[in-house]
């Protein structure tokens, strides 16, 4: 079986079977940034944007995504976020990073014209697990980029 989806702006045909989740269909098609870990919607390593909303790709039947627009970090990662993550020591083994980047960019888009505080960032990132960094760097990097982008644009 197969579905048609726009992945990172490119129309693709994804192969799948009846019970395949979107994560497996993406990885089978060579889109390897979403990671397979818990496969029960706890760890966030498989986070992608589905028509603009951040979701767990392991909890979506691939067949439900016919016609969807899927975005992963293969679409590109903004230089300011990369620099902030490195500067804050928010990347160690890197396994969780693609999922975090998708969630952080979705959060920054949502708060593009609004103040963003520490508690909001922690709640928004609570669906992504990182077993290396202890989260402080991830939260700080998110707030750094938010401050930078909102200051520049105002």
């Amino acid at each position, binding site marked *: *079986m*197969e*579905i*048609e989806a726009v992945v990172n702006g490119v129309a693709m045909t994804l192969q799948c*079977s*009846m*019970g395949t*989740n979107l994560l497996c269909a993406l990885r089978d098609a060579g889109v390897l940034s979403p990671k397979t870990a818990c*496969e*029960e*919607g706890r760890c*966030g390593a498989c*986070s992608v944007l*589905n028509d603009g*909303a*951040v*979701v*767990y790709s*392991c*909890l*979506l*039947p691939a*067949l*439900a995504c*016919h016609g969807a627009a899927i975005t992963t970090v293969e679409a590109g990662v903004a230089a300011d976020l990369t620099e902030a993550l490195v500067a804050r020591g928010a990347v160690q083994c890197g396994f969780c990073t693609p999922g975090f980047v998708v*969630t952080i960019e*979705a959060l920054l888009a949502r708060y593009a014209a609004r103040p963003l505080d520490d508690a909001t960032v*922690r*709640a*928004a990132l*609570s*669906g*992504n697990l990182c077993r290396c960094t202890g989260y402080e760097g991830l939260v700080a990097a998110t707030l750094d980029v938010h401050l930078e982008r909102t200051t520049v644009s105002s």
Partner: protein
Amino acid sequence: MNGSAVIRRPVSIAEAVAAMGECPQFTVCAGGTALMPGLNRHPESVPAGWIFLGGIEELRGWRRTSSGGWRLGALVTLEQVASLGDDLSLLAHAARGAGSWQLRNAATLGGSLVAAWATSDVITALCCLETQVEIVSATGVRHAALEEFIVGSGHTVLGAGELLSAVLVGPTAGRHSYTRVGARAANSPLLCALAVSADPRLETVRVAVADGSHVARRAPAAERLLFAEADPAAFAAAAQSVAAPGDDALASAAYRRHAIGVLARRAHRALRGGAR
């Protein structure tokens, strides 16, 4: 793909009900978040076919009803519920505790009721909101009160060929409170929770208690005591009396029962003080 005999993508409630009648063995899928963990773990349990509800616009959105309540489509996501304002802030507050952002973006209100998990925050809040569900089948539309619809953890009276199409909530003005205990501040299933609503005249009081082991249930003795009894201990004991929590890896039964008492005393203080 759209024409496949085993994949149905209805675009109306009528089409969905027809597909369910034709293919009763197919799996009906709204957001997928309740179905997929099991399917990922047991790939051999692959569905015979899918009926995906995502294309049915008439299952989306929410509006006020003529009786002053609200009608929420079955496909309203928990993230949308979490964003609802004033009138539905009890339900919105509860939805904010449900899972993570990623989960709430996919999980639907209708799916939450059909899954009927004991750890459901939105079910706990809906117990205090005079909730009815609207159910459509080939033979017509019926309504069921929430407490009749959910008969136990993971079990509802939804029959073969029936689709939960909307959730109807009564007038919501008045005082309310939603408090929960989880293993951490966000993205953790409730260990226990307490929802309370009272109409503006404080005549109709509803208290619902979730203990993590059973779907939330009302606590009628606590409802009578909230504004009649100044002693928070009596109210807390009445709330605890409807709980029958179990022990599991997350918390002991004793901890859950104790925490329900703490939540009840906080709600007693906040609501009698007039805090909304």
